[in-house]
């Protein structure tokens, strides 16, 4: 037996009460809880019982992103939970919500940077932390975006382990994962638990797989009190009925029977079936440097037919393309072969206008929050019916009854964006079914539901089928798959081998500051260019330098599409040059000389950016801005994190547009009002989602010591190389030409 480190991780919660502003009732009421060092605790309770809130209180972050009234105290080993950064580690429910960097190594090192660990010491700690969660085989340069959901959750765990926490908190870490990924995460948590010396608190709905990993079970009631607490088996045995009454998935209990929904609540228009022969969906990824790569994102191997009254499920591991196939069935994505998906014999969903699409099918997307199109729950349910012209008393009555079945009636007047994730998903189901579409395409309709709400959702799906509707669901839920008439298994299409590495252009060897500075040099060069004859010379110099920058000496295949990339980026600039020249000609005395001068000036300003900006890398830009220019660390890190996620914003924008379309709310260029409404709604939706993401990330970052990171160190150095000097010097050349060649 080895000598163990002094026990740490003693958590004492006393009299903790929390009421967020704007709520009448507290979420947590006088919670008293003592966790001994090394204890492993499972925390359960019905939806909305304040489990996540209690976890945040344990990190000391309650109130940091939400305002409210807090009384009572939380201490970890006698001190406040935030006394030492990283004392309390937190893993969030949504994979990726806490990812801060583009590469695995950098992400794990985030906490180490915040506490100012010297760079040389980082790789060891990072490798150890990754090995502890079973990710030791990953290259430190692996992009975080290439990880599966399970790997991403384990990455988050490794990130907290790097700071050697005394307490590790996991907030439904497997709720959004497929069974294989969930098992990987549990294995990593199990290894952590065996290692001892750390207190562990897990929040979960589905208890079965966790009961062997934990020793103690704490149950919170719907009104935020601790109602049961003790050894896990004893509590399960003694409180079984209470737990089942709360809707908790108690191990060994058979799945609940679907709720019997009154007839007439669900209608489904008689319509020809939605059918598709085997098809594939290709996805083209465009990289910042302008190159694009097309890979098969999803593949349907057998013909699919959503016939009236049937439930078809798509099953397969996360990332195998189930969501993509559903989106293609709804007509949002092009298929190979073209127009594979048909409604009836000859109608292609993609060709339908918004109301006709809504009449043909409904869609509940994976992120239910993005289909929200109104600001009142009742309106949300009615939106599609209204778009289709059904706004009568009978429809309203059915809307209320649908909400009642799903346990949302008391929220009918609330703003749907303020609901919890599980509530939003149920709302999306109600909103999809009210107008009686013949086909419902549902992406994970049961995620995050307790036994009661699960039974309600299943009951509605059954009622929809009984009324003659069809359901196609992508799901990990074995209890749903077990009820299906047809099961389609999807596997991730094999990735084609990566293309052989290409030669890198000279410009790729330059750092971000030199790229930015040289792009900026286009501005004085343009402003100082006098007559068009000189300006032409300046442009010629820039073209020669641009060709040099993009030259890629050496052996091997050349980098693809260099000219096309520059051309595409130059296009808006050339457009601006032409219109500016024209307006100058018009307003400044119809002088062709001056007009040409001004137009060329714009070209001089824009050209360097078109060549250089594609090579800017957000992470490296952050490194250099903070380390070389001495800009304040925290804003720089936040900006780099935001830049990292820009591509997800584009995806959100697209998804909002799809949701509106399938809800029957169309956009037509002939009706400017619909265009304005669409832009406004998309922008607002994007902003709301963005703010949520920022708040989540703030919690994850603070749990890793970001709040107190005044003197950070950096995972990656920010060297200024000779190539940078060369680039800036050459970049000055057009300016010199502009000033001297007159």
């Amino acid at each position: 037996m080895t000598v163990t480190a002094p026990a740490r991780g003693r958590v004492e919660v006393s009299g903790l009460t929390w009421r967020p502003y704007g709520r009448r009732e507290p979420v947590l009421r006088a919670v008293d809880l003592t966790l001994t060092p090394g204890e492993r605790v499972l925390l359960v309770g019905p939806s909305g019982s304040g489990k996540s809130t209690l976890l945040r209180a344990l990190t000391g972050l309650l109130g940091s992103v939400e305002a409210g009234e807090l009384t009572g105290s939380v201490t970890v080993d006698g001190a406040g939970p935030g006394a030492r950064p990283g004392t309390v580690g937190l893993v969030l429910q949504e994979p990726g919500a806490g990812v801060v960097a583009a590469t695995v190594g950098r992400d794990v090192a985030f906490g180490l940077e915040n506490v100012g660990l010297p760079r040389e010491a980082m790789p060891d700690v990072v490798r150890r932390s990754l090995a502890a969660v079973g990710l030791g085989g990953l290259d430190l340069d692996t992009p975080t975006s290439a990880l599966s959901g399970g790997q991403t959750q384990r990455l988050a765990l490794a990130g907290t382990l790097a700071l050697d926490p005394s307490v590790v908190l996991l907030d439904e870490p497997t709720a959004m994962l497929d069974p294989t990924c969930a098992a990987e995460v549990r294995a990593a948590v199990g290894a952590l638990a065996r290692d001892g010396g750390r207190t562990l608190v897990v929040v979960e709905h589905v208890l079965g797989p966790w009961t062997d990993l934990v020793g103690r079970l704490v149950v919170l009631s719907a009104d935020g009190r601790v109602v049961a607490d003790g050894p896990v088996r004893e509590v399960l045995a003694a409180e079984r009925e209470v737990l089942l009454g709360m809707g908790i998935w108690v191990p060994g209990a058979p799945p609940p029977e679907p709720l019997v929904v009154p007839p007439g609540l669900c209608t489904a228009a008689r319509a020809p079936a939605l059918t598709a022969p085997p098809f594939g969906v290709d996805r083209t990824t465009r990289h910042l440097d302008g190159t694009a790569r097309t890979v098969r994102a999803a593949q349907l191997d057998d013909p699919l037919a959503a016939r009236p009254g049937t439930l078809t499920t798509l099953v397969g591991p996360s990332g195998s393309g189930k969501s993509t196939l559903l989106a293609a069935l709804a007509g949002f994505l092009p298929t190979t072969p073209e127009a594979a998906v048909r409604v009836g014999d000859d109608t292609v969903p993609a060709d339908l206008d918004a109301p006709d699409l809504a009449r043909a099918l409904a869609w509940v997307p994976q992120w239910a929050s993005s289909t929200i199109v109104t600001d009142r729950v009742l309106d949300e349910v009615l939106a599609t019916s209204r778009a289709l012209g059904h706004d009568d008393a009978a429809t309203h009555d059915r809307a209320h009854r649908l909400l009642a079945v799903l346990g949302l009636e008391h929220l009918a007047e609330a703003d749907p964006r303020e609901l919890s994730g599980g509530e939003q998903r149920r709302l999306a189901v109600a909103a999809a079914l009210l107008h009686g579409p013949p086909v419902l395409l549902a992406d994970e309709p049961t995620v995050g539901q307790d036994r009661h709400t699960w039974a309600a959702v299943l009951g509605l799906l059954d009622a929809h089928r009984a009324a003659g509707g069809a359901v196609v669901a992508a799901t990990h839920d074995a209890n749903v798959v077990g009820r299906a008439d047809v099961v389609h298994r999807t596997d991730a299409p094999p990735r084609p081998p990566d293309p052989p590495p290409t030669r890198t252009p000279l410009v790729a060897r330059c750092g971000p500051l030199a790229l930015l500075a040289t792009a900026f040099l286009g501005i004085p060069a343009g402003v100082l260019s006098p007559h068009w004859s000189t300006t032409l010379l300046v442009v010629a110099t820039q073209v020669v330098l641009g060709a040099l920058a993009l030259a890629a000496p050496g052996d091997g295949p050349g980098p693809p599409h260099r000219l096309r990339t520059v051309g595409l980026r130059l296009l808006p600039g050339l457009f601006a040059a032409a219109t500016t020249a024209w307006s100058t000609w018009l307003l400044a005395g119809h002088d062709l000389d001056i007009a040409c001068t001004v137009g060329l000036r714009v070209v001089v300003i824009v050209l360097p950016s078109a060549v250089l900006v594609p090579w800017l890398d957000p992470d490296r830009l952050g490194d250099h801005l903070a380390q070389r220019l001495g800009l304040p660390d925290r804003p720089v890190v936040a900006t780099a994190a935001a830049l990292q996620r820009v591509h997800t914003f584009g995806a959100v924008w697209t998804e909002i547009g799809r949701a509106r379309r399938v809800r029957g709310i169309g956009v037509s260029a002939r009706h400017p009002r619909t265009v304005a409404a669409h832009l406004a709604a998309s922008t607002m939706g994007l902003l709301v989602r963005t703010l949520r993401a920022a708040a989540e990330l703030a919690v994850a970052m603070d749990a890793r010591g970001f709040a107190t990171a005044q003197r950070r160190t950096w995972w990656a150095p920010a060297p200024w190389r000779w190539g940078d000097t060369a680039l800036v010097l050459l970049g000055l050349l057009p300016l010199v030409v502009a000033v001297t060649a007159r």
Partner: protein
Amino acid sequence: MATTSTTYEPPPTRRSITATRPLMGWRTVDILTVAFLGAAFGVAFWAWGIFYNGPVTALQIGYAPLLGLFVGPWLLAGVVGGLVVRRPGAALFCEVVAALVSMIPGTAWGAGVLFAGILQGLGAELAFAILGYRFFGVAAAALAGALSTPLEWLYETGRFPDSWASIPVLSSFAGNGGYYAEWVWRDKLAYLGCMALSGIVLAGVLAWVVTRALAAAGALSAFPPGQERRESRAV
């Protein structure tokens, strides 16, 4: 004829709720929110750019200074950033991130868009600074929108004087300038007027509306606008 007398109560003066003290004590959620808002606006800028091309072309063919009427949306980020977080630097930070993000996929202005973002953000920041970071109502928003424009206008229309031609070194500047340097003063001033008007309406007032809508959606509960909304409902 009966006379009725009504006691007229003046409406209570509506003061804005300021950020928690110290004003420069940025919380992580403040920093991330401004950065993310900026990035989201950057994406929106880029999407709006597609719609912007239409009026731009039409107006450039007609009377180009009217183009100023369409600059407002590009100034939104700074004003919204300032209205949400209410700390010194928020407006500038938000607008610069938005400009940076819209620069990366390539715009009609190249790296100039980042420079413009700094100028516009500085203008909005100036407005909130003048008000001591204490007022964030619709008038403050309108002022921030209006002040976002002059520096940008100077950059786009500035022209170095011809008289510099005789001065050594400065001679190379003489007669040169920005995009619209060659316009006559009347057109340049018309352009400034259009920009300011657009700044007031499409950046200032619209930013105020957007902020209120975000607060109504429950997305600003950690920020002063969220608190204002809660207090206005808790009668």
